[in-house]
């Protein structure tokens, strides 16, 4: 049990706790910030798994981008009257049933397969050698993965222009009222 193990289990626990808080919190803004906590500790998990680039991308994309988008979405889709933004929940038993069934299936699958034998995990795994991973990702994106990379760029462009067009007409029509 090294410090890295400890850090991994701590980050995993914070990730799950943040998710559970989103599940049970009735206040929207608190749920959004719990999601921030959850996703940023997930970046720590990525870092410990040796994916530095993904960890940084996670922070930039999720914490910097998506959470701001979600908070703006909350702001624009609720009439603020000085009170708290409260959200209800329902279908508790159905959710419990589905989650329990899927959880049992997943547990069975994880138990059944001998992962260590089937997939030898690299034992080196030191995250100290920064840079090598980044270089591999950069070279990979420009050589083997150049087509999906460009397609992702086009997808983002199309989606963002579409989103801007949709919400742009929203802002115009509400200010015109």
């Amino acid at each position, binding site marked *: 049990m090294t410090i890295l193990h400890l850090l991994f289990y701590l980050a995993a626990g914070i990730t799950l706790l943040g*998710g*559970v808080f*989103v*599940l049970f919190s009735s206040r929207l803004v608190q749920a959004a910030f719990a999601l921030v906590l959850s996703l940023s500790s997930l970046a720590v998990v990525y870092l410990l798994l040796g994916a530095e680039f993904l960890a940084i991308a996670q922070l930039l994309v999720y914490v910097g981008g998506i959470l701001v988008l979600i908070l703006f979405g909350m702001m624009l889709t609720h009439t603020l009257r000085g009170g708290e933004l409260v959200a209800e*929940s329902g279908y508790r038993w159905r959710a419990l049933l589905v989650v329990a069934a899927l959880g049992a299936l997943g547990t069975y699958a994880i138990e059944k397969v001998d992962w260590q034998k089937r997939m030898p995990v690299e034992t080196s*795994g030191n995250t100290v050698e920064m840079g090598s*991973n980044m270089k591999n990702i950069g070279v990979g994106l420009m050589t083997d993965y150049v087509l999906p990379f460009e397609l992702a760029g086009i*997808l983002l462009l199309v989606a963002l222009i579409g989103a801007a067009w949709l919400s742009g007409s929203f802002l115009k029509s509400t200010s015109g009222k």
Partner: protein
Amino acid sequence: MIPLAHILVLSGLLFLVGLAIVITRKNYILMLMGIELMLNAANINLVAFSKTSAGAMQGQFFALFVMVVAVAEVAVALAILLKVYQYYQSVNTHDTTQLKG
């Protein structure tokens, strides 16, 4: 190193939490958050398996593209939600019942 099974358990639990959020919450924005958690749970798996075979980075690349698609999805979904709000003055599932869903 961390056993692969523990990472898989983390990802599975995170996926279940996201699924429970999508089923139980009645606010569309909170449901979006649940979808984000589910996408992230899948990403953990991809990263974990990209560690298993030496030198292979396919998992990390795939996780990167999943992230891009997640951004596009959230942006479009929030734009649609603005339209829904404009029409119904609400973003709750029990108010948007015109399709009898």
